[in-house]
């Protein structure tokens, strides 16, 4: 377990920034009420075996007692670095993103399942969409009852969505909560 270095930090923050915009500040400055201290600590990012964890400081302190090789996981895993050096967010960071999301898409109940099987979001399945999405922005996908289902990358801007035909792709799939079942081993 080690803190992220410069390049890794920028990679992680850039990725998260795509989804949350200025709310990234809230993620970093989020006070943690864990541990025995009366003063609330902070959360920080730690790297362990290619995976990036979002951990409270008190937990980091206690985790130092465990040898690096023996440490399987700590805090919340939010993503991993690939062999090529790029950073990928994983489903586990969904709660973090959904509470701070800038761009949102709500799915109609009929198309929820399709998304949860790993398909892209089509225009026909779109229940609601935030104004002012540009192509390439990170988008968090919700069900109509505000349950976060996953996230992805916008393929079209909100403006273009209007003229899109119902089979056009609006959001490219990146992760969804169905992965907890489908890819149980990998997570």
């Amino acid at each position, binding site marked *: 377990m080690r803190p992220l270095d410069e390049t890794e930090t920028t990679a992680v923050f850039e990725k998260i920034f795509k989804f949350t915009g200025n709310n990234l500040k*809230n993620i970093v400055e989020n006070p943690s009420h864990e541990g025995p201290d009366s003063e609330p600590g902070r959360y920080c990012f730690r790297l362990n075996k290619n995976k990036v964890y979002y951990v409270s400081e008190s937990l980091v302190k206690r985790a130092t007692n465990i040898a690096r090789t023996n440490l399987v996981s700590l805090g919340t895993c939010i993503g991993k670095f690939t062999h090529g050096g790029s950073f990928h967010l994983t489903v586990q960071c969904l*709660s973090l993103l959904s509470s701070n999301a800038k761009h949102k898409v709500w799915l109609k109940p009929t198309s929820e399942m399709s998304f949860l099987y790993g398909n892209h979001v089509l225009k026909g399945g779109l229940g609601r*969409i935030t104004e*002012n999405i540009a192509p390439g922005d990170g988008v968090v996908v919700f069900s109509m009852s505000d349950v976060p289902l996953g996230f992805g990358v916008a393929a079209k801007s909100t403006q273009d969505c*209007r003229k899109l035909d119902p089979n056009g792709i609006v959001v490219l799939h990146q992760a969804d909560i169905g992965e907890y079942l489908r890819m149980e081993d990998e997570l």
Partner: protein
Amino acid sequence: MGTKKKNSQKQKITLPPELPPEISEDEIEVSDEDLQFVDENRDYAGFVSRLDTQSITKHVTRVAEVKEDALEALYEKRLKKKQLLLKDQEVDKLEVDPVDALPVKTLDGKLLYRTVPKTSKVSENNEEGETGGDDKEGTGVIKLTKAERRAKLKKSRKEARKQGKEAATTEVEQTSQAAVLAEVKEDITAEEAFENKKRKIAELGTNLLSDPESNIKSLKELLQLCIDDDHSIVKLGLLSLLAVFKDIIPGYRIRLPTEKELQMKVSKDVKKMRYYESTLLSSYKACLQKLSVLLKQSSFQQVAIRCICTLLDAVPHFNFRESLLGVVVGNISSPDEVVRKLCCSAIKSIFTNEGKHGGEATGEAVRLIADHVKAHNCQLHPDTIEVFLSLSFYEDLGRSEKADEKNNVKNKKGKKRKNLKEPGQLPVNDRKRSKQEVMTKMREEVEADYKSAAFTPDIMERRRMQTETLSAVFETYFRILKHTVQPTASSSEANASPSAGSCGSHPLLAPCLRGLGKFSHLIDLDFMGDLISYLRRLASGGNGSESTSVKSLSVSERLQCCIVAFKVMKSNLEALNVDLQDFFVQLYNIILEYRPGRDQGEVLAEALKIMLCEDRQHDMQKAAAFVKRLATFSLCFGSTESMAALVTLKHLLQKNVKCRNLLENDAGGGSVSGSIAKYQPYASDPNLSGALASVLWELNLLSKHYHPAISTVASGISSMSVVPNQVYLSNISPIQAFKDLSLEQESLTPPTDLLKSNGKRKRGSGSLISAGIESSLDTASIDEDEVRKKLSAHFMLLRDIKENQRLRDELDHANLSLQLYEEYKQQKRKAKRTKSKKTIA
């Protein structure tokens, strides 16, 4: 002719007449010599009598003829007064320079120099005499000795004096009378001329109205009358011209005949008609030119504008509409309130009465206004844009027509098919076919003719015009928005032109937003993105992160931006449900900045209604955040705003069942409140405020609100979760609630004032204002009967005091009289005693 004349004239010249100033005509002594002189020189004195008989009688009779008795009397009185005063001055003046006698304007309007021939005659004589006398003297000087000369001089002087006197007196008579007459005449004629002109105008007007075709020439006369020094005459003339034009202008546009047409032989009637039309047109043109000239003079501006506006209103189809429109649009943001109102109403009437001109003028006016706004860089009075609100666009126009056309096309196709089939089925001979062709050709021709002659304009044409109008309107609106967003230009402009209006540096923004809201359903989808982004920038003015210049926007304007954005979205996006998160964030923050007195409550209520009540779905977090914020701020709003806020709050709670956790007694937190475990009242994003972790204690406070309606609503909301299936009162919109309450408040205020004053009176002059307020606050909640009782008791007391005072006064009076009586008795007794003593003695 001889010496006498010479003498008299000479003396007159050498000696300037020393006239006794106070001599009236009767007192002048006329010596025998004089008489003789006059007798002998009747030629010279004759004009006196001539003048008298002619001019005076003429005048008197004329006056008597024309004027009413009262007027005459008045003039006579004035005349008498003036006579005394004027005589000397006038005489002197006239003596010095007799040609200066003022000309007189008669009934016919001719200028008559009545006094000039006479006086000039005199002066001629004078000159003659002068020269003659000089000559004589010149010759005589050599012969005469000094003594002789002296004697002669003396003699001549004496004579001269006499002569001079005589001449002067006659002159006095003539000139004074003439002058006074002239004066009076002038006086009379000024008024008379005014009256006459008025009458003339009226006469011409009625003639024109009764039979315009035969009296069309008098239009020119009427126009001539308008060129006058007298302002009121000009105004009257213009207004009567206006009335005439309004009535006689035909319902079509006049096209002057071309030269070819003029060469053609036409009947008498047509000629007459042509003459009539051309005269009408030329005088109309002249009138408009006159108006446009007068427009530049400040004293005539209002009249001219009134005329132009009325003409535009009455005859928008007629020739020269463009120039009228140009003038009106040019003055639409005039600093003069009256002018501006007139222009606005004229433009509005053009917009609303499109039937009069077939919609062409609307397009022109809108285009002109757009150019005007462009030229003035958006620094105009809000009324300029306000007029767009009265525009109306028919959406159905053309749609049904299109459908019809489609059907027609189908039918035609069907027909064609039939036609195609026919020749296949039976081979027709050529003659029949040619006949058919001729028939179809004829039919087409007839159709085309009908179309060109039809009164109603082509639907497609109207559609095209509407499109143009609409594009001009939106061009204007977008220009204003863009101008508002531009930081540097707007600020410099605002500094440069302080006359822009009362609404800060963006006077046009408010009406522009209103217009966008109204026509939001007509905006092209392509513009939508830009429009929304502009609105977002405007609405986020307070944050200042993007652009500092927009900070000057008021809360109401920013709220308006939010409202417009929602309206635009709502009316265009039936298919796609877009969540305008940014605007929600703005609203969430604007609620904090809202000040009841400063900002418009209606706008807030409308924003609450459109954004929170009518939007279909909300995130739970957002809804909870808004519920919390509205509850918090209804504590410190005025009663009307808090009512609107509470109605919205209730609405939100009804829609979002999960948010009713806020009504529970224990602070939620945990999984319910999402990732944020603690309520953060200062968060700027409703999604991050963690409002679900809080409890709506505010409702408890609000149920003790001083306003009964609010307290009932608040307690109703707080019991919502306890009685889940309660049937709520009909859901009124926040706007409705706001209006209801503000009306109620108006009716509520007077009684509290009354009570306040009563309280003051009760406590006397020493009581403080705070006491009065306290009493008013106290009594506000007390029911009416109690107040009445108290008041009656108070007035009873007052009456008793007064009664007491009166009684005491009476008592004092009685006492005094008793005392007096007693004293009187004593004195009497004493007197008796003394008397008796005396008698005894």
